[in-house]
């Protein structure tokens, strides 16, 4: 038995296998994911595993190595998020997102840090030796909202596109702020004297980290696009370039102490358009599938490891500190969201409603990033206290907030509905007006950003396309691609049915879907039917663009509900021509 020889790859594969089997297990029982978010279940599995290992070995189970997390587990998830990020809503709301990410995070860090320092002053808690700087260091890693956890929970609750992109974008971009503050405070801890110059250097560093990350990402993105221009004869390795360049951008940024997350997002968003035009259809599908697969596996592993790592002797339980940490996290986030939204709403017609604000504040989940950062802290005597506090905050946010956010959202929704049930006519006309407005908005161009988008488009068509695209074609929008796909499909079906010579009478996609019910059509004015009608309308009226989730971890972009809706509309329109 030569276990030593294969130990490392064998164990890694076993962990991944465990993660995937756990995922299958959850989905076998249909009801479970709707009550308990997947992330909670995975942490739970991790806890059990950790308990087993602890029981067997009688020592602490392997703690998730921060290097493994930051170098191997985090990049696939962020790449997936950046690649499939819908750019239109993202850039429409970029101002708000940046405001929340930057100002919001700074607000949270200083708020939590100072309040915890205040708590430390209370003699009864025996916490005097935790200095202000230590508190600020701790709060800099605990304040940041974690994209992995947020994504995992928002999958379950269906929020509108704008809200989804706000929370999600914020969780991705606050990495830059977190990195700077964390490193800043850490270096301050080691410096005997802190001068004001150092503080200003810190502020400047923030811009360097953020903008530097973007530049690194864009450079790699453009290089990737350029490379794919020449891959016509070696289609098989095309998908590899996408992953290699993205990963390189992440590693390069980390090497220069810039924000790796921002770099990889910029790389993915920058190269997407050109790469997709250059690579073959099959490579494109491969890229999509692999990305989703990797990010899924990473995601699952992170949560399981989180569970495993909490078991053990790494913790110092000082309950007042821990409880106050949790409370302050909640309070400062809520305050931050309130104040910032007040400013945001001054400038936009599309206001962030109070229900949205609640979701943003309550959806500020902490996750594995905090956990890894706390393990990276230099060893000082209070480190275990911080580890314990971080663990509790993460578990609290993921379990309590994660599980209760959905019922609370439903409750808020129901409350608003109870004001007055809309009549059938109102429902129809309101939806009619919504579609009308969406159309008018599209015709008049989206406000504000259009100027910059126009400039970017001009720059793109004049210079970038010529360099980066293989065939200098107008890059097609996804809708045109979808339409072409439908045409191809329809032609194939007709050919198979032997009808290619004749005019198409019935698109076969449409015919087997009209359901003839046995409802009595004379009795249409019965009040009992009213509820039925409401239900039918609620289920079947086409949604306007902005009411679906912008990004989904588990479904490929071609298979989401809005795309199905778009297909139907296109078919109907073709039919009526």
């Amino acid at each position, binding site marked *: 038995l030569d276990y030593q020889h294969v130990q490392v790859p064998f164990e890694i594969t076993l962990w991944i296998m465990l993660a995937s089997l756990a995922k299958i297990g959850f989905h076998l029982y249909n009801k479970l994911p709707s009550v308990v978010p997947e992330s909670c279940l995975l942490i739970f599995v991790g806890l059990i595993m950790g308990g087993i290992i602890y029981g067997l070995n009688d020592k602490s189970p392997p703690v998730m190595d921060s290097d493994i997390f930051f170098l191997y587990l985090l990049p696939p998830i962020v790449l997936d998020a950046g690649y499939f990020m819908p750019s239109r809503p993202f850039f429409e709301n970029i101002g708000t997102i940046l405001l929340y990410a930057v100002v919001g995070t700074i607000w949270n860090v200083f708020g939590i840090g100072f309040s915890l320092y205040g708590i430390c002053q209370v003699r009864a808690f025996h916490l005097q030796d935790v200095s202000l700087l230590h508190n600020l260091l701790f709060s800099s890693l605990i304040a940041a909202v974690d994209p992995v956890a947020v994504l995992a929970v928002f999958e379950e609750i269906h929020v509108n596109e704008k809200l989804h992109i706000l929370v999600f974008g914020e969780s991705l971009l606050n990495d830059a702020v977190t990195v700077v503050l964390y490193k800043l405070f850490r270096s301050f801890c080691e410096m005997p004297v802190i001068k004001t110059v150092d503080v200003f250097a810190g502020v400047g560093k923030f811009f360097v980290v953020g903008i530097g990350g973007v530049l690194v990402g864009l450079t790699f993105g453009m290089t990737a696009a350029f490379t794919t221009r020449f891959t016509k004869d070696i289609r098989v390795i095309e998908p590899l370039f996408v992953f290699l360049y993205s990963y390189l951008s992440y590693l390069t940024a980390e090497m220069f102490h810039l924000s790796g997350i921002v770099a990889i997002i910029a790389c993915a968003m920058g190269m997407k358009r050109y790469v997709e035009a250059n690579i073959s259809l099959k490579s494109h599908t491969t890229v999509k599938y692999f990305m989703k697969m990797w990010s899924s596996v990473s995601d699952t592993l992170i949560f399981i490891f989180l569970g495993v790592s909490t078991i053990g002797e790494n913790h110092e339980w000082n309950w007042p500190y821990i409880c106050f940490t949790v409370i302050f996290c909640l309070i400062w986030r809520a305050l931050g969201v309130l104040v910032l939204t007040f400013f945001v709403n001054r400038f936009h017609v599309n206001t962030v409603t109070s229900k949205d604000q609640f979701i943003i504040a309550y959806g500020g989940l902490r996750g594995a990033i905090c956990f890894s950062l706390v393990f990276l802290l230099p060893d000082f005597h209070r480190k275990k206290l911080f580890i314990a506090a971080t663990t509790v905050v993460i578990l609290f946010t993921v379990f309590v907030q994660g599980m209760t956010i959905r019922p609370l959202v439903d409750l808020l929704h129901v409350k608003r509905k109870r004001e007055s049930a809309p009549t059938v006519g109102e429902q129809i*006309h309101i939806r009619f007006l919504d579609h009308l407005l969406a159309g008018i908005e599209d015709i008049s161009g989206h406000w504000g950003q259009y100027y910059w988008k126009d400039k970017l488009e001009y720059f793109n068509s004049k210079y970038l396309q010529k360099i980066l695209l293989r065939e200098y074609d107008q890059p097609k929008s996804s809708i045109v691609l979808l339409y072409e796909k439908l045409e191809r499909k329809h032609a194939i079906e007709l050919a198979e049915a032997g009808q290619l010579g004749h005019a198409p009478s019935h698109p076969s996609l449409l015919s087997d879907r009209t359901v003839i019910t046995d409802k009595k059509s004379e009795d249409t004015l019965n009040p009992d039917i009213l509820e039925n009608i409401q239900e039918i309308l609620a289920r079947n009226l086409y949604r306007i663009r902005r009411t679906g989730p912008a990004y989904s971890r588990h479904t490929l972009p071609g298979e989401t509900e809005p795309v199905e809706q778009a297909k139907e509309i296109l078919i109907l329109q073709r039919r009526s021509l």
Partner: protein
Amino acid sequence: SVSHSQITRLYSRFTSLDKRENGTLSREDFQRIPELAINPLGDRIINAFFPEGEDQVNFRGFMRTLAHFRPIEDNEKSKDQNGPEPLNSRSNKLHFAFQLYDLDKDEKISRDELLQVLRMMVGVNISDEQLGSIADRTIQEADQDGDNAISFAEFVKVLEKVDVEQKMSIRFLH
């Protein structure tokens, strides 16, 4: 009236849509907007821009149609009641929407016209009978003079609880 910067913005949008650069937009120019292609009401919205029987719309017409969607400013609400009603008043906004339903321009939405619009707005899983009963219900709720059609006044009444001013407005600039 629209402000100077709004006009310039709209004009740049107009010219960017006008691919043949002859100062007018045709239906194809509108249909080139991808999001409009998958809007259930896309064709009707496009038609609303073109005056009766014409195939080209100039910038003035373009602006005039879009002017319906300007938000109602507070200081305009109490302006002179004797002058002509501005295009973006609540009543005119609703009339614009009404005309999208009312294809034959007889100032009434008949059952057929309603059915056509409904068919465009719902998925393929609803049978014709179900749709018919929905249409009947809608007319029954709104109809007050018993002509089995929805007149403009009845349409306005149905939507009296809805904040039409906010719903049917877009900010052209921040």
